[in-house]
């Protein structure tokens, strides 16, 4: 409906421009209204570029290790993918690493959502001593490179005996400055103070307000935050590589990396591993992609 509306408005403009301006401009106007095929070609190329690496992972992996040095290379999937999968299973405990990653990522996502929404609620709607400087501090440290504290973090993990323990992955990530800031912005923008005051006058406790007002309103933003945390944990590579040593405690990324180091580079095996590590996320993305897009775009306008 809005599209029709704006195009009719533009027709009026076109009429004016045609009458006042030269012919070249009027051709340009008309092209914009109808959308030039160039736009779709460009977007098609963009789609191809986005999707090709996934396709290529599968093609190389399914053609097997011997086919890799063929010229010209096969551009179609082969039949060796099951063999590739069992090669990956032989080299690393892949299912175990999948389970590890899933558990860690779920715990972190849930805890991020819970603690970030609580702290975000407090930062957005409550007064307490030190609130202002805490917030400035939190935003300030978000700007610092995350690698700055990595050496002391590692030293701390050794001191606590958390090396090769899932605690080293989970506890530092339970709640993050990003999550708190995100939820603060959302709660600040979506929940009017008057609503909270009314609830308070009606005698609702703080927890009641959190459960019955905050949670229902910010549910979808919180879900997106949980997704972001889940994806970030799933894809994190450096920290798990540093702190997890025994194969049965590897995350997916570390396990896939292991394929690279335990053999002379076998591209087909590596690509098989990469595909297997990425496929679960692609499946997840089919269901939540739209909401992630909305989350990214909402965040952009607020930020």
């Amino acid at each position, binding site marked *: 409906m*809005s599209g029709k509306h704006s195009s009719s408005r533009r027709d009026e*403009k076109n009429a*004016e421009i045609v009458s006042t*301006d030269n012919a070249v401009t009027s051709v340009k106007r008309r092209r914009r*209204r109808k959308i030039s095929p160039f736009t779709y070609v*460009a977007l098609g190329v*963009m789609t191809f570029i*986005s999707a090709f690496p*996934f396709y*290529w*992972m599968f093609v190389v992996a399914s053609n097997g290790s011997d086919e890799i040095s063929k*010229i*010209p*290379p096969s551009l179609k999937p082969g039949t060796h993918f099951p063999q590739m999968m069992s090669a990956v299973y032989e080299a690393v405990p892949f299912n175990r690493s999948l389970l590890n990653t899933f558990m860690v990522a779920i715990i972190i996502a849930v805890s991020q959502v819970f*603690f970030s929404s*609580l*702290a975000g609620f*407090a930062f957005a709607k*409550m*007064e*307490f001593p030190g609130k202002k400087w805490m917030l400035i501090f*939190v935003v300030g*440290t978000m*700007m610092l*490179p995350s*690698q*700055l*504290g990595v*050496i*002391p*973090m590692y030293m*701390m993990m050794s001191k606590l005996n958390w090396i090769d323990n899932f605690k080293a992955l989970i*506890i*530092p990530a339970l*709640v993050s*400055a990003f999550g708190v800031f995100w939820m603060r912005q959302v709660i600040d923008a979506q929940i*009017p103070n*008057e*609503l909270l*005051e*009314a*609830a*308070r006058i009606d005698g609702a406790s*703080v927890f009641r307000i959190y459960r019955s007002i905050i949670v*229902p309103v910010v549910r979808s933003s919180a879900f997106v935050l949980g997704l972001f945390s889940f994806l970030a944990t799933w*894809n994190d590579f*450096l920290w798990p590589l540093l702190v997890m040593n025994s194969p049965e405690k590897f995350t997916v990324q570390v396990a*896939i*990396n292991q394929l*690279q180091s335990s053999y002379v580079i076998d591209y087909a095996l590596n690509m098989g*591993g*990469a*595909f297997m590590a990425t496929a679960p996320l*692609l499946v997840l993305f089919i269901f939540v992609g*739209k909401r*992630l*897009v909305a989350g*990214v775009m909402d965040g*952009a306008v607020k*930020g």
Partner: protein
Amino acid sequence: MSAQAVPSKSRIKFKSSNAPIDKKPRKKIAPMRRQDRWGMLFVSPFFIVFLAFGLIPILFTTYVAFFNWDALGGAPEYIGFANFKELWSDTYFWQALRNTFSIWFISTVPQMTLALGIATLLANPNLRAKVFWRTVLLVPNITSVLAVAIVFQQLFGYDFGMINLAITWLGYHHIDWVGNQLASHIAIATMINWRWFGYNSLIFLASMQAIPRELYESASLDGANRWQQFRYVTIPQLRNTIIFMMIMGTIGGLQVFAEPMLYGGGMTGGDSRQFSTLTLYLFEQAFFNQRYGYGAVIGIAMTVIIIAISVLNYLIGRRIATDGTK
């Protein structure tokens, strides 16, 4: 949910129309005070994690930097500014710095340009299958760095990589995408570009949609063509977004680590350190050579550089954007 919202909405109207504006904040403070404890309780889990795993490690880095701190044991030895002095005359550090800037530049400029272009295409209100294009754009971003590195390593392979095959098919000579310094930077920047161009397009798109349509309408009534509209309406309106993205791009770009490490050079970033970066060098010193103190100094140097560039970015960005409005 809606059942709750409706009565409370009517109450808001009632309250806000009756209460004098200057009385409102005073009224708010009184009931809030009772909640001091709740606010602090709600923030405390975050604050504990933040202190223990965010702030304290950062502060401790500064402390470690003044020591000869060997991971393999032995008491840390205070050595004053010796680590800083060593860094100043460390050619590996300067090489890593140059590489980092080179990769950052090759990845930021095309990425921003491409993202702006794609966002402009997607901002067209008559476009079909909008949601599809947007969703496709985000797919590279959910892929792990490791998977990206594995694929691109193969694509940029010397003998059988698709890219070199295409180059030879066109009649040119193979390019050594690993050994050649500039070529390796381009390959690494390509991975970064691929992973982030869609995400950045979405950010630009969101900001473009927030631009009031009237601005374009009056611009076209004044006879501005599409390019002029883009240059004199879109760009100045996107000012804050561009500054923000340039700063975030700098923070991320100067920390680039996983891509060069996984590109096959290991901790040294290639045989002749041709794609060693600052963070990679930090990890090499701290976790490969076990020199925590020296690694900490690299981290501090990196932070200083990032802050300096961010401030510079901010000033330049403001300048560019305000020029556009003239």
